């Protein structure tokens, strides 16, 4: 009987889960989350090690993000190459303040194991690279923030925008590089400048 009551209350609580996530009382030392910050998103993510992380845990880093899927044959290898080209041009001194992040648009296929083997195959299995996936809904929302469009066109194929986004340590979108194999000078400059501010 107690179990039933418990179950009822758990269901009841779930029904109310739409309540706004209270922004956890920020300690006086911590900077509050700004209005335009991606850290306003409550979404939870899993990395290539199978570890759950909150977006917020990346706060304080310069983030360079791109959305891909690991079974992709066309644009994604080139997008990863573009990301790597950016990595090569990062200032060695400030590189530690930068994270390069691949976000999967195909969370159903891209299990943490898949992400891990993709990372190994593409030599991304080390800092500053992070591979992330979340639920389909969180992914759609995250894409909305990045103005990335994507659509599954067959079981193993997606159309998607090719955009590399740069976020400052507050999580505000400060620059986007659009297209494949485009000139990345401005992107790199933006990242290095931002990473120098620490």
């Amino acid at each position: 009987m107690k179990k039933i009551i418990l179950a009822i209350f758990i269901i009841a609580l779930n029904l109310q889960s739409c309540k706004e996530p209270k922004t956890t009382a920020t300690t006086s030392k911590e900077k509050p989350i700004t209005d335009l910050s991606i850290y306003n998103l409550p979404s939870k993510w899993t990395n290539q090690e199978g570890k759950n992380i909150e977006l917020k845990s990346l706060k304080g880093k310069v983030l360079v993000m791109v959305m891909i899927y690991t079974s992709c044959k066309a644009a994604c290898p080139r997008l990863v190459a573009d990301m790597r080209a950016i990595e090569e041009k990062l200032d060695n001194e400030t590189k530690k303040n930068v994270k390069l992040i691949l976000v999967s648009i195909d969370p159903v296929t891209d299990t943490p194991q898949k992400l891990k083997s993709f990372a190994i195959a593409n030599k991304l299995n080390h800092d500053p690279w992070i591979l992330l996936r979340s639920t389909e809904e969180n992914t759609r929302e995250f894409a909305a923030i990045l103005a990335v469009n994507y659509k599954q066109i067959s079981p193993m194929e997606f159309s998607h925008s090719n955009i590399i986004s740069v976020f400052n340590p507050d999580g505000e979108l400060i620059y986007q590089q659009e297209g494949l194999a485009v000139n990345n000078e401005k992107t790199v400059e933006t990242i290095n400048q931002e990473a120098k501010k620490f």
Partner: protein
Amino acid sequence: MYKVILIAILFFIQKGFINAQQNKMVQIQEGSFVPLYGSTDKKPVVVKTFFIDIYPITNDDFLIFLKKNPGFSKSKIKGIFADKSYLSYWESDFDFGNINPKTPVTSISWFAAKKYCECQGKRLPTIDEWEYVAMADEKKIDARSKTEFNKYILSWYEKSKTYENSIGKTFKNHWGVYDMHGLVWEWTADYNSIFLSGESRKDKSEDKNLFCGGASVNATDLMNYAAFMRYAFRSSLKAQYSTRNLGFRCASTTRK
């Protein structure tokens, strides 16, 4: 012990009562159709049985939501979730002024629309779901090849300020759903899944069928043109955007 159960039951009754005040839904039977855009090789897309709100969300509905979720009021909403025009026609956070409360709420960002639906235990409809419901006229599930139906839709696209009309004044379609055409444009969950030719984004699948030929205007052209307008509009949106002619309604996979 019984008291606890009683409280639990009362809680549910109250919950049910609150839900009853919200927008009623109807069931949409599973079916398939070939959307203008978004299927490979013009293969039919299957739309699974789901539920959709009979009417778009009104200013009245939205006010109730805002009172419970003040973080989404126009002065409190975070910049990342809405642009400056969010609820711009409202007088203040909890006052939409002297406009008719039964008019559809518009100037809403995708984030706010999504949150509203989540708070009802619902979600936004997908593009395919929305288009599937929207292709029905009063009688037929798929009226897209009817000239009259298309003329009706297109004549609405030319009218201005239809957002000032109350909900439920357009026709009731085959499913019992109102205002899919003739009132306001509506957000969909995956509005950001469209790739239109001519957009600056590179490397995406193109659909040559999206463009109408020149002068010939038969029912199919009208139908494609009307649908094209909607897809083009969606592809121009960003999740923070809000405009005066864009509202929303909710959907659900299960009955609410």
